[in-house]
């Protein structure tokens, strides 16, 4: 049975943060969602210290075999999340991972300890694709910033810490090593790839913010290369994601060195994609077509 930092999971497929709102999905589909929950663990949307409304439209743009988004992390803030969302997420039939982001170490610490003390929370994912307001640098692009953040948070959070790595760096393995040295229990990658697309009707970027994050099958080879590079550099487990839309894509990510995989954009096209990918992956592994990945996913 696969596990995430010691948390036993029914299968190796979880969701990518921000690509599945279990509360809205339950409103739409009812308790059928719980009976047939698509993921073996649920990762929340990213929570920030204060509420955020998100970015002005247009927020999404379809691209070849993918899409660009610039959503802007709309969320209720820590207090709203703990009071309103957490009780509902606690009803899901799988372990809960809460994704958090802040613009300095003190705020990050407040988030991590506020979330970690709740027994409903199994693990914390650190979204480090944001600038530190003091240095102006994107934390996840700097090995030293990443290590310092982990060192600050590690004593505050007696729960597994997963660092979500950005692909928008020359050497993601350096950042992964810094996270491991700082005390991270796992890394997850890749976040979206910075991209833009021009609306042919206007000659301007299709996304109001001018650019956003590219996801979908278009980014999968980038994810596979980065997972391979990180797997060669760290010994902590890797949650691999980026354009996985079927069992073969999940198997490829396991073969690249991931221990678990996450499905993101494919859930937009198919709400039950997580379950389908897990089932296709199990069939591939059982049929022996899994090759060397069989050993790594066990």
């Amino acid at each position, binding site marked *: 049975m696969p596990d995430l930092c010691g948390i036993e999971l029914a299968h190796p497929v979880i969701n990518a943060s*921000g*690509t*599945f*709102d279990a*509360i*809205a*999905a339950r*409103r*739409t*589909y*009812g308790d*059928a*969602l719980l009976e*047939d929950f698509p993921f073996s663990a649920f990762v929340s949307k990213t929570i920030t210290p204060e509420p955020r*409304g*998100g*970015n*002005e*439209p*247009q*927020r*999404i*743009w*379809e*691209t*070849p*075999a*993918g*899409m660009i*988004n610039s*959503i802007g992390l*709309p969320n209720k803030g820590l207090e709203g999340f703990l009071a309103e969302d957490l009780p509902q997420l606690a009803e899901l039939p799988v372990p809960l991972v809460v994704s958090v982001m802040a613009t300095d170490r003190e705020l990050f610490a407040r988030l991590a300890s506020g979330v970690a003390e709740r027994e409903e929370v199994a693990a914390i994912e650190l979204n480090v694709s944001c600038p530190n307001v003091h240095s102006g640098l994107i934390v996840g692009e700097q090995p030293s910033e990443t290590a310092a953040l982990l060192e600050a948070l590690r004593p505050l959070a007696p729960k597994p810490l997963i660092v979500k790595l950005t692909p928008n760096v020359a050497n993601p393995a350096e950042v992964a090593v810094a996270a491991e040295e700082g005390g991270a229990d796992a890394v997850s990658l890749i976040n979206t790839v910075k991209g833009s697309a021009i609306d042919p009707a206007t000659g301007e970027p299709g996304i109001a913010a001018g650019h956003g994050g590219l996801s*979908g*099958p*278009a980014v999968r080879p980038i994810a596979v290369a980065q997972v391979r590079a990180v797997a060669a550099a760290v010994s902590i487990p890797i949650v691999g994601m980026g354009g996985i839309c079927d069992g073969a894509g999940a198997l490829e990510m396991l073969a690249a060195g991931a221990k678990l995989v996450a499905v993101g*954009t494919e*859930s*937009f*096209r*198919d*709400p*039950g994609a997580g379950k389908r990918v897990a089932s296709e992956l199990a069939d591939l592994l059982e049929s022996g077509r899994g090759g060397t990945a069989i050993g790594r996913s066990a």
Partner: protein
Amino acid sequence: MDRHPLPRPGAARPPFNRRLCEVSESRASGGYRVFSLVDREGPEPRAGQFYMLATERHWEQGGGRPFLPRALSVAECGPAASGVRLDFLIEGIGPGTDRLCELQPGERVWVNGPLGNSFSTPRELHRISSPAGGEHDAARPSGAILVGGGIGIAPLALLRRRFAERNVPTRVLLGFRDEAHSGGLDDLFACCEVRLASDDGHRGHHGYVTELLAAMLAGDDAGSAAVYACGPPPMLDAVGALCTAAGIPSELALESPMACGYGACFGCAVPKPGGGYLRLCVDGPVLRPDQIATAAHA
């Protein structure tokens, strides 16, 4: 005709799966196309609801687009030999809608839905709009005025039939650009009296459909009516402003780019009057003017 008892509209949630539905019919209609699917699993949709659709074959075709499913309001529905027949009105304006226009009987389409909220009855809308309730005479049947523009006439066809079944007096105003953009008129509104407007004046009033609405609202009998509109954004802005000025409650069916249709992607943001955003897929697509920030609020 074999009339199966249909599930009561709105009584059931959409199945938590993406399913393949066969195309039973596809035909040209005034510059657009109308196609029908047979849904063996889902409940009968309510007027205003929509489906996320992607063809089974040749969706990610040359150039990797279309990639995401497309949101289409259901225009009509009825019993099929085994399930529910769903009719959609479509105009080819990009890779996704172009591909859906090519559908032939026997092909299959991935379907997720019915999704979103639906139109209220005039009585419900009067109750929502003036909660104190004093002014509206509950014994007097409230009439409905349906205002459609272009491809936006689609969800009003099912709404008109629902109102006819409930003996709600209904007047229909439809506007379109020209003959080539008059699809659905004869297919969806053949059996009822409709007042038409066309930009080029070749049929009905020479001008905008909102001019017909303004004249109707100025009439003596509009006071107890409720207005329902779907069409291009400037038309909806105008309808909302006219109704708000006249003190007539209204509901507008909006459109937005949408990746998922069930609250996961946060792409379909619609600004609220007090700041922040609604998600059109789960908070709409049917909204009242007072729920939306427009130039009139600024």
